C-alpha cells in the first residue's frame, strides 16, 4: 500500500520528520519498505506559462518560446510539437538536474546556443523530469498551476510504501494510516466533511436492491447520479492516484479508486442504462453463467461465486471485478454506485479459483467492516457531484442484513500486566485506545470497558487490545526478563539421540554430510532403490520435485556423480534424513535413514603412494566401526533373490557383492556395491561405488549401551596360526563362528586368503591366527594343542576343512 504524505496530511498533522514517522510505523507493525520522494531532484525547476511562440530564424522545426515565470520571462529554443500559448509547463533553469531523454542518464543543464540563438533554459517533458517515460512533447500542467512556484512545491510528494499485514485491511487506506499516526504521535484525526445536494428523484423510485444470500453479502449500499459528464479527473486527484500507483482512467472510475484509497472501501460504478430493469440482485451465479470482466476476459461462473446481477444476467463478480458491459465509458450519463460488503472467504475462494486478484478482492478477503460502506458511498457520491456534475438521487439504498452490535471488551490492568509484564496506568491505556479510535468507559479502579471502532475488525478479544497498547508504546518499553519457574520433565527421543550419535561417528569416519531435497522427480525415483508407495505432491513446482523420496540413494548417487566431475580424490558422502512411505489411512510413515556412498581412490594423490580404490570392504569397515561403538553384533548375508527387498533395490546392487545387514534375525540395512548398470543410469564415473543404508529405528531396537567391565586376564595369551583348505563357497564367518565357540579362544583374525595354484579347484586356502587365553592360569602347550585339535576336528566335520600340508 502506497501512502502519499501530502494526501495523508489532509487527515492528520505530521509532526515528525517522515523518516522518524516511518520508523514508528515500522516498529508498531506496519513496515515501511521505502520512502519515495517525488520531485527531490527538481531544484531550479518552476512552473511557467507560455506567452509567445515565434519561429526560429535559422531552423524550420524549432521555435522561440517565451515563458512567463511571474517575476521574469525567459526565452528558450524548443522543438516540442505541443507548444501553445497559454499552456503551463515545467521550466528548468541553467544548472538544473535533468534526465537525458535518450540515455536516461542525469545531466546538469548548461547554457546553450542552438543555431545561433541563445536559450535561457529548457521546457521539460515528463521523461526529462524523471516522472514517466513520456517524451512526445512538453509536460502540460493543469491550467490552475501557479506560475513561478517551484514545481516540487506543486507536484512534489513523499510516498511511503507500506507492507500491511493481512489482519489490517483498515491500513489499506489513508484514513486508516492516519489513525495509526494519530496514536503514535498523539494527534487527532480529521475526517472529511461529507455533504452534497440530493436534487434528483427518490432513489427508491429508480433502483431496487435484493440480497438473495445474506451470508455472503452483509450489506449493499447504492447511490444514483444522473447527468454526469465523463472526462479526466482533476489534476490533484490524478497526481494522488499516480503517487499511489494507480493509473487515472476517468473521473468516475478515479473517484471510486480515490475513495477506496481514502476509506479502504472498494466501490464500483455501473453505467446505469445497462443495468436491466434498474434492479440489482446479489446472488450466487448459476451454473455456467458467463461474464466478461473489465479486463476483457470471458469468465464462466459457478454457484460458489457471488454475482451482482440485474434482473436477468450477472453484471459483476461481487467484490472481485466489474463486468465489461456495464463499464463507465465516455458517453455514460447516469451512474449506479455500489458500496457493499461481502463475506471474506467467499471472495477469496472466487479470486483464487479465477486467479484474479484485484484491489477490491484483497480488501474484501481480509475482512473490512460493513459499517464502512455508507460513509464511503456518501463520500464518493459527493465527489461525483462535485467533479463530474450531475444530480444525486435523494437518499441511498441500504440493505444491511448483516448488522451487528459493536464489539465491547472488558480490559483490566492485571490482564495487561499478566501478558506484558508491565504495569500500565489506566489513564495511559485510555489515552492510547482513544487515540486509535476506541471508545473507553472506565468501569472500575483498574477496569475499562472498551468499544472497538467499526473499522478495527481485527480486534475481537482482550489480547488484541493488549497488543494495541504494547505496539503503541513500543516493544522497547517492555522490560527484558528471563524465564523463571518450573522446567518440564525432559523426555528423550531415542531415535533422534541415536541419529545424532551416528552423525558424529560418520564424520569421524571421514564422511562429508550432505542434505538433499525430499522431493525428487519421478525419473530419479525410478532409477534405483525405489521402494513401494511414493507419495506425490498434487501441485509440484516442476517435474523435478514431484515425489517424496522413498530412498536417500538416488540423490546421494546424483550428488556423487556431480562431484566426481571436479573431484580427483575419492569421495565419501552420507545423508541422515527421512524417507516417506504411504501410511494406512493415517499420516505417511517417515523413517529416519542413514545412507552413505564411497567411490574413488582410498587416498588422495600423494607422494606417499596409492592405496587402491574404495570397495565393498571399505563400506563394511565403516558399518563394523559404527556397530562396534554401539555394541551391536550384526551378520551379513548375501542379498537373496527371495529376500524382502523389492526388486528395484536388488537390481540396484551388484548381485555378488552386496549383503543384508542382519541383527538378531532382523534386516536393518543393506551394504554393497552398486550394480554396474547404475554407472550409466546416474552418469557416474566408471568405478566401483560402495554404499550402505541403515534404518535407524530398526537399529535402535538392538543397540545395547549397557556395557559390563571384564577384567583383563593377568595370564599371557598365545597365538597359533592355522592354514586351512576348504570349499570356496563356505563363508569365512562360519569358520570364525566355529573357532570362536571354543571357550579358551579369545580372538581370530583371517590374515590371508588364497585361491590358485597348489590349491585344488573349487577350494580356497585360509590363514587364520587364533589367540588362546585363560582367565585363570597360564596355558600350557599341551592345553593349546588339545583345543586346536578339537577346533580342527569340528572344522573338518562341519565344513570339510583340512589342514594345508
Amino acid at each position, binding site marked *: 500500500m502506497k501512502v502519499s504524505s501530502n494526501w495523508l496530511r489532509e487527515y492528520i498533522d505530521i509532526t515528525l520528520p517522515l523518516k522518524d514517522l516511518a520508523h514508528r510505523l515500522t*516498529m508498531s*507493525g506496519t*513496515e515501511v519498505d521505502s520512502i519515495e520522494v517525488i520531485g527531490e531532484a527538481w531544484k531550479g525547476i518552476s512552473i511557467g506559462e507560455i506567452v509567445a511562440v515565434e519561429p526560429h530564424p535559422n531552423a524550420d522545426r524549432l521555435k522561440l518560446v517565451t515563458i512567463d515565470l511571474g517575476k521574469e520571462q525567459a526565452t528558450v529554443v524548443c522543438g516540442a510539437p505541443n507548444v501553445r500559448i497559454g499552456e503551463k509547463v515545467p521550466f528548468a533553469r541553467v544548472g538544473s538536474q535533468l534526465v537525458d531523454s535518450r540515455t536516461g542518464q542525469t545531466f546538469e543543464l548548461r547554457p546553450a546556443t542552438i543555431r545561433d540563438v541563445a536559450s535561457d533554459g529548457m521546457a521539460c517533458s515528463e521523461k526529462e523530469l524523471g516522472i514517466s517515460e513520456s517524451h512526445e512533447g512538453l509536460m502540460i500542467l493543469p491550467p490552475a498551476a501557479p506560475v513561478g512556484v517551484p514545481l516540487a512545491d506543486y507536484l512534489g510528494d513523499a510516498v511511503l510504501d507500506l507492507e500491511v499485514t*493481512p*489482519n489490517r485491511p483498515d491500513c489499506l487506506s489513508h484514513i486508516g494510516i492516519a489513525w495509526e499516526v494519530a496514536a503514535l504521535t498523539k494527534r487527532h484525526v480529521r475526517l472529511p466533511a461529507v455533504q452534497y445536494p440530493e436534487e434528483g428523484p427518490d432513489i427508491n423510485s429508480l433502483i431496487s436492491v435484493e440480497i438473495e444470500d445474506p451470508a455472503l453479502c452483509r450489506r449493499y449500499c447504492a447511490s444514483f447520479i444522473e447527468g454526469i459528464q465523463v472526462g479526466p479527473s482533476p489534476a490533484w486527484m490524478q497526481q494522488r492516484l499516480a503517487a499511489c500507483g494507480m493509473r487515472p482512467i476517468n473521473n468516475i472510475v478515479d473517484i471510486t479508486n480515490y475513495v477506496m484509497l481514502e476509506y479502504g472501501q472498494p466501490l464500483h460504478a455501473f453505467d446505469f442504462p445497462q443495468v436491466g430493469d434498474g434492479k440489482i440482485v446479489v446472488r450466487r451465479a448459476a451454473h455456467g453463467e458467463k461474464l466478461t470482466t473489465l479486463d476483457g476476459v470471458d469468465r464462466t461462473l459457478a454457484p460458489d461465486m457471488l454475482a451482482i446481477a440485474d434482473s436477468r444476467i450477472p453484471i459483476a463478480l461481487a467484490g472481485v471485478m466489474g463486468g465489461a458491459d456495464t463499464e463507465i465509458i465516455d458517453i455514460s450519463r447516469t451512474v449506479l454506485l455500489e458500496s457493499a460488503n461481502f463475506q*471474506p*472467504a*467467499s471472495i*477469496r475462494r472466487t479470486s483464487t479459483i479465477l486467479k484474479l486478484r484485484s484491489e477490491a478482492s484483497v480488501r474484501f478477503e481480509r475482512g473490512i467492516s460493513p459499517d464502512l460502506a455508507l460513509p464511503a458511498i456518501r463520500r464518493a457520491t459527493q465527489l461525483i457531484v462535485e467533479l463530474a456534475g450531475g444530480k444525486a438521487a435523494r437518499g441511498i439504498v441500504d440493505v444491511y442484513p448483516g448488522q451487528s452490535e459493536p464489539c465491547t471488551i472488558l480490559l483490566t490492568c492485571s490482564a495487561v500486566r*499478566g*501478558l*506484558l*509484564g508491565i504495569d500500565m496506568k489506566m489513564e495511559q491505556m485510555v489515552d492510547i485506545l482513544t487515540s486509535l479510535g476506541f471508545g473507553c468507559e472506565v468501569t472500575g479502579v483498574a477496569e475499562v470497558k472498551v468499544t472497538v471502532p467499526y473499522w478495527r475488525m481485527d480486534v475481537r478479544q482482550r*489480547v488484541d487490545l493488549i*497488543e494495541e497498547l*504494547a*505496539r503503541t508504546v513500543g*516493544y*522497547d518499553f*517492555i*522490560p527484558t*526478563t*528471563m*524465564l523463571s*519457574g*518450573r*522446567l*518440564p520433565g525432559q*523426555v528423550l527421543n531415542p531415535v533422534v539421540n541415536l541419529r545424532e550419535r551416528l*552423525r558424529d561417528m*560418520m*564424520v569421524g569416519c571421514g564422511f*562429508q*554430510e*550432505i*542434505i*538433499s*531435497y*525430499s*522431493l525428487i522427480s519421478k525419473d530419479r525415483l525410478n532409477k534405483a532403490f525405489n521402494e513401494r508407495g511414493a*507419495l*506425490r*505432491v*498434487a*501441485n*509440484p*513446482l516442476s517435474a523435478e*520435485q514431484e515425489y*517424496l523420496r522413498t530412498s536417500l540413494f538416488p540423490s546421494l548417487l546424483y*550428488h556423487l556423480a*556431480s*562431484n566426481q566431475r*571436479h*573431484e580427483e580424490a575419492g569421495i*565419501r*558422502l552420507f545423508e541422515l534424513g*527421512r524417507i*516417506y512411505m504411504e501410511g494406512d489411512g493415517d*499420516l505417511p510413515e517417515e523413517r529416519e535413514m542413514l545412507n552413505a556412498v564411497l567411490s574413488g581412490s582410498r*587416498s588422495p594423490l600423494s607422494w606417499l603412494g596409492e592405496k587402491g580404490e574404495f570397495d565393498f570392504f571399505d563400506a563394511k569397515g565403516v558399518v563394523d566401526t559404527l556397530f562396534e561403538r554401539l555394541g551391536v553384533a550384526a551378520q551379513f548375508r548375501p542379498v537373496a533373490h527371495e529376500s524382502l527387498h523389492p526388486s528395484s533395490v536388488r537390481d540396484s546392487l551388484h548381485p555378488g557383492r552386496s549383503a543384508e545387514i542382519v541383527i538378531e534375525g532382523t534386516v536393518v540395512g543393506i551394504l554393497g556395491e552398486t550394480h554396474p548398470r547404475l554407472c550409466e543410469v546416474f552418469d557416474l564415473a566408471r568405478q566401483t561405488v560402495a554404499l550402505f543404508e541403515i534404518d535407524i529405528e530398526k537399529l535402535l531396537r538392538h543397540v545395547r549401551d549397557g556395557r559390563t567391565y571384564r577384567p583383563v586376564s593377568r595370564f599371557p595369551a598365545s597365538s597359533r596360526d592355522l592354514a586351512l583348505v576348504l570349499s570356496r563357497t563356505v563363508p569365512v564367518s562360519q569358520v570364525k563362528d566355529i573357532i570362536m565357540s571354543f571357550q579358551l579362544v579369545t580372538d581370530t583374525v583371517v590374515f590371508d586368503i588364497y585361491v590358485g595354484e597348489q590349491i585344488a579347484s573349487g577350494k580356497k586356502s585360509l590363514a587364520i591366527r587364533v589367540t588362546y587365553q585363560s582367565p585363570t592360569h597360564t596355558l600350557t602347550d599341551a592345553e593349546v594343542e588339545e583345543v586346536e585339535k578339537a577346533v580342527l576336528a569340528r572344522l573338518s566335520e562341519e565344513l570339510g576343512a583340512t589342514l594345508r600340508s
Partner: protein
Amino acid sequence: MLEELQELKADATSALEKTTNLRELDEWRVQYLGRKGHLTSILRRLGSMSFEERRAVGAAANEVKFELEEALRAREGSLKERELAESLERTSIDVTLPGYPVALGRLHPVTRAIKEICEIFASMGFQVVEGPEVEWDYYNFEALNIPQDHPARDMWDTFWIDTPEDEHQLMLLRTHTSPMQIRLMEQTRPPVRAVVPGKVYRYEATDATHESMFHQIEGLAVDQGITLGDLKGTLFEFARRLFGSDRKVRFRCDYFPFVEPGVEMAIDCWICRGAGCRLCGHSGWIEILGAGMVHPEVLRRVNYDPDIYTGFAFGLGVERIPMLRYGIDDIRLFFGNDLRFLRQF
C-alpha cells in the same frame, strides 16, 4: 725393550687416528690391546728379563696400556658421536612435504547451525523434539488459528499431497515447524519448554533467497505467568549467544495468526553497524525470527485455559544464519551439495 714400547705406542696412536668407524676401532683394539695383540706379546716376553728390567719395562708397558685404553675410549666416544651425527643426517627429511592424509568428515553447515542453536536453547531448559514433515491441514493451519480461506494463508504457499478421494482431511508438506506447537501441547500439560528443528516446504519459485525446502527451528514455552518480557529476555539472550554480546536486538510488532501480540526480532547489521548496507537491505537491521505470545485461540484448541496459562512461541529460518555469518549469497547452494562449497565449513 723400552724403545720397542715407545714405538708400539707411536704406531698404535697413529693407527688409532686412522680408524673411521666402530668396526675398525674394534680391530685396532684386538691388534694392539687384545690377548694376542702387540702389547700382550711384549708383556709375554717379560718373564725372560731380569728383575730390574722387568720392573722398568713392566711399569712402562702398563703405562702404555693405560694410555692406549684411554685413547681407545676417547676415540670410541668421538666415533659414536660422528656415527650418530651421520645417521641423523641420513634420516633427515623435507619437512615441507605433506603428511599422510587423514580422512576428515564434515557436517553440513545447516546441521551445524541447528546443533548450535538447539544447544543454546537446551541450556535454557528447552528440550529438543521433532515432528512429522507430512502434516494434516489441521495442524499446519486450522489449529493455529488459520482457518480455510483465511487471507493469512498467503503467507505460506503450500505443497499439497495427492491423497485418495475418500480422504476427507487435507494432507500437506508442513510449511513451518509450528504444527508441533499443537502436537506438543496435545501430548503434555504445562509447563512446556521445547524447540523443534526440522525441514519445512514452501510452494515457491526458487531464487537466491527463496527455496522450496529449508529448515526452521520452532520454540514454545507455556506456563503460568509467562510474559512478553520473558519472550524478549529469552530471545535477547539467544541472539547475543549466537551473534555475539555486542549485538543490538530490536523487537517490533508483526502479525502471525497464532500469536498475539506478534513480534519480529532483528539484530543490528554487523557489516554497517546500523548505517545501512547491502547485507541489511539498507535498513541497518537484519530480521532473524518471528515470535509472539501464544494466541488464546490456540491455547483453547489444546484445552489449555488461557486465563491460567500464557506462553510464547518463535520460529526462525536456519539457512539464514550461516548465510549471514559466512556471507553466502545464494540459498540454493545448501542443497546443491557441491563439495567445493561444503568443504569450506
